[in-house]
């Protein structure tokens, strides 16, 4: 006897009772409109701590100065423009990225013969690059959000809105943290979201199929890994913020987008979803998934950091942003002495698990980026340099370097690392990207929040205590 598969599929598709209005338009329309609006990242005007990536956080000794009363000379169309030097401060950057910026600086100089670009960067182990420049630079790293607001408030940043309209159109939503109202004061060159980087070989060894899609499944994976003697999760709680990010990610799952928006606008955290997040996190901590000395372990720089544990197969997972593969590669270079070491082959990525039945948008992601701003008294050529950095050509080379995800969509297929491609897909699929909560809420609330979250990890604090600390900080004069 025989069966016609093609005909059978046709009949099957035609069979069920499907009304002609099978897809009601209004809910789809609402979700599409919200999705388009929420792709813009929410920003507050409070001053904020910028997330330090790589080397130890530093405080720049300067603040960009407001322009002098008489404007400094700007580029003119005269026959021979005056020689100009642009200082360009790129902050803490992995070697590959410094190399790219050096090339970009040389190319810009060649295209503008009267310009000299003085590139400066931070590398803690190199005495020539151990601290930020003494004088305010012309083009410099700017984390956005509250950090931006503080510098705009002193008049130190150039309003580049009219100069970079094309770039803003191209980049879209991720520009939002570098804007105040409708004015643009900087541009991101990278933006990414956070998730779990994990060791696919250790998962296989433990017999774990797939990756945890819910917190319950994460608990299962933790139990399974402990049974076979593998440390489930590496955590550098010694640095504070890596522990805090756990709470941020659970909040994103327990709190509806509306609750988050309200909390951000008013700095009021009385929605029960915030305490619920703390309770779920307390459960996770109680499962003891971390390495023994996690409270004092650093997260990134040293070979004994939590990143080092993941890189060398001593732990199965670590919650980190899209910069992590290049951090892991750096760890391996230091540990093995092999200059060409790259991120481990066994590396995989999955988004932060969901919480069944909770109010949060399951596709929401936590993230942030890096950008550059221009000093208010910088020469016009400084803006041209910024625009060159954001050109598709340079963004492609940034993507190829593996140091992160470019923000220019046309350059995004330059990302070849399959894990970074997964992160990129996760970011593009996210209906909502929430900036790191400490950046979003400002340093006063953010600082209190981070301390209270760490207290939860040490056992000295409670889920309610986190909300109380944030509320008290927000109310402080």
């Amino acid at each position: 006897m025989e069966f016609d598969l093609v005909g059978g599929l046709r009949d099957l598709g035609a069979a069920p009772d499907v009304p002609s209005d099978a897809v009601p338009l209004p809910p789809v329309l609402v979700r599409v409109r919200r999705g388009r609006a929420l792709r813009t990242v929410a920003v507050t005007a409070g001053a904020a701590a910028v997330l330090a990536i790589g080397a130890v956080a530093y405080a720049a000794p300067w603040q960009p100065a407001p322009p002098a009363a008489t404007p400094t000379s700007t580029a003119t169309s005269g026959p021979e423009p005056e020689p100009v030097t642009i200082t360009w401060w790129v902050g803490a950057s992995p070697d590959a990225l410094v190399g790219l910026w050096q090339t970009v600086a040389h190319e810009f100089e060649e295209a503008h013969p009267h310009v000299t670009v003085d590139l400066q960067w931070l590398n803690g182990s190199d005495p020539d690059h151990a601290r930020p420049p003494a004088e305010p630079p012309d083009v410099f790293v700017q984390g956005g959000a509250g950090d931006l607001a503080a510098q705009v408030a002193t008049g130190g940043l150039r309003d580049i809105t009219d100069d970079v309209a094309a770039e803003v159109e191209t980049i879209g939503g991720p520009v939002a943290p570098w804007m105040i109202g409708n004015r643009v004061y900087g541009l991101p060159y990278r933006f990414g979201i956070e998730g779990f980087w994990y060791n696919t070989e250790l998962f296989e060894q433990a017999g774990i199929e797939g990756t945890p899609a819910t917190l319950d499944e994460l608990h299962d994976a933790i139990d399974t890994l402990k049974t076979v003697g593998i440390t489930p999760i590496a955590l550098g709680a010694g640095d504070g913020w890596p522990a805090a990010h756990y709470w941020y990610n659970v909040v994103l799952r327990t709190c509806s987008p509306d609750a988050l928006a309200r909390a951000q606008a008013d700095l009021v955290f009385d929605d029960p979803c915030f305490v619920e997040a703390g309770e779920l996190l307390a459960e996770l901590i109680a499962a003891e998934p971390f390495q023994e000395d996690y409270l004092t372990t650093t997260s990134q720089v040293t070979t004994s950091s939590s990143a080092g544990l993941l890189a060398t197969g001593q732990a199965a997972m670590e919650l980190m942003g899209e910069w992590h593969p290049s951090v892991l590669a750096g760890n391996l270079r230091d540990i093995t002495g092999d200059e060409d070491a790259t991120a481990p082959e066994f590396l995989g990525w999955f988004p932060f698990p969901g919480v069944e039945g909770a109010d949060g948008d399951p596709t929401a992601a936590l993230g942030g980026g890096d950008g550059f701003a221009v000093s208010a008294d910088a020469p016009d050529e400084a803006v041209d340099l910024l625009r060159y950095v954001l050109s598709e050509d340079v963004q492609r080379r940034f993507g190829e370097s593996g140091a992160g995800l470019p923000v220019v969509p046309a350059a995004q297929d330059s990302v070849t690392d399959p894990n970074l491609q997964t992160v990129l897909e996760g970011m593009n699929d996210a209906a909502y990207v929430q900036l790191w909560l400490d950046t979003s809420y400002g340093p006063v609330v953010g600082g209190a929040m981070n301390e209270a979250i760490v207290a939860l990890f040490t056992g000295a604090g409670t889920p309610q205590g986190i909300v109380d600390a944030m509320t008290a900080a927000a109310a402080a004069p």
Partner: protein
Amino acid sequence: MRTRSHDEPLADLVARRGEALVRYAYLLTGDVAAAQDVVQDALVKVFVRLRTRPDADLAEAYVRRAVVSVFIDGHRRRRRFADVQHLLAEPDAGSPPDAATHLDLHAALATLGPQERTAIVLRYFEDLTVPEIADAMGLADGTVKRYLHNAIGRLEQRLGAMPTLRADDREALAVTSTGRRS
């Protein structure tokens, strides 16, 4: 605020092709309500990201692709394949029904993993080539062939021989099957 003209391509697609899209998704999900959810998610996924006004056929092609990825991603997230693992055990040694109908096909498809089911639907309903299926599912050609081979094996066990199989799928079977079928 968006103007109405901005939403016309979406409204038009939903009105003209909503039912057809749900019937398509039903082949994958086996359940109408789940199919409606998948189509809604696929429409949102596509139209949130579209920057320019799409051609109607192109928009539908994007949405059909998104139906596949929403379906697969949904299963990857829920790891439901592990739950239906027991259904993949060989069926009882009785002979297949005398005249299998699309209802039997519905039951047979439910015993396949989501990737296998998707490969079958894309091959025999959408009429795609193996490279096209590989592209739509984000897999290598060889992986798609393996899914098709396994799926066809299971379907034939439950439904009987299938003459409308493509010649190259049957060739692959001839080379790789190990005498499971009589």
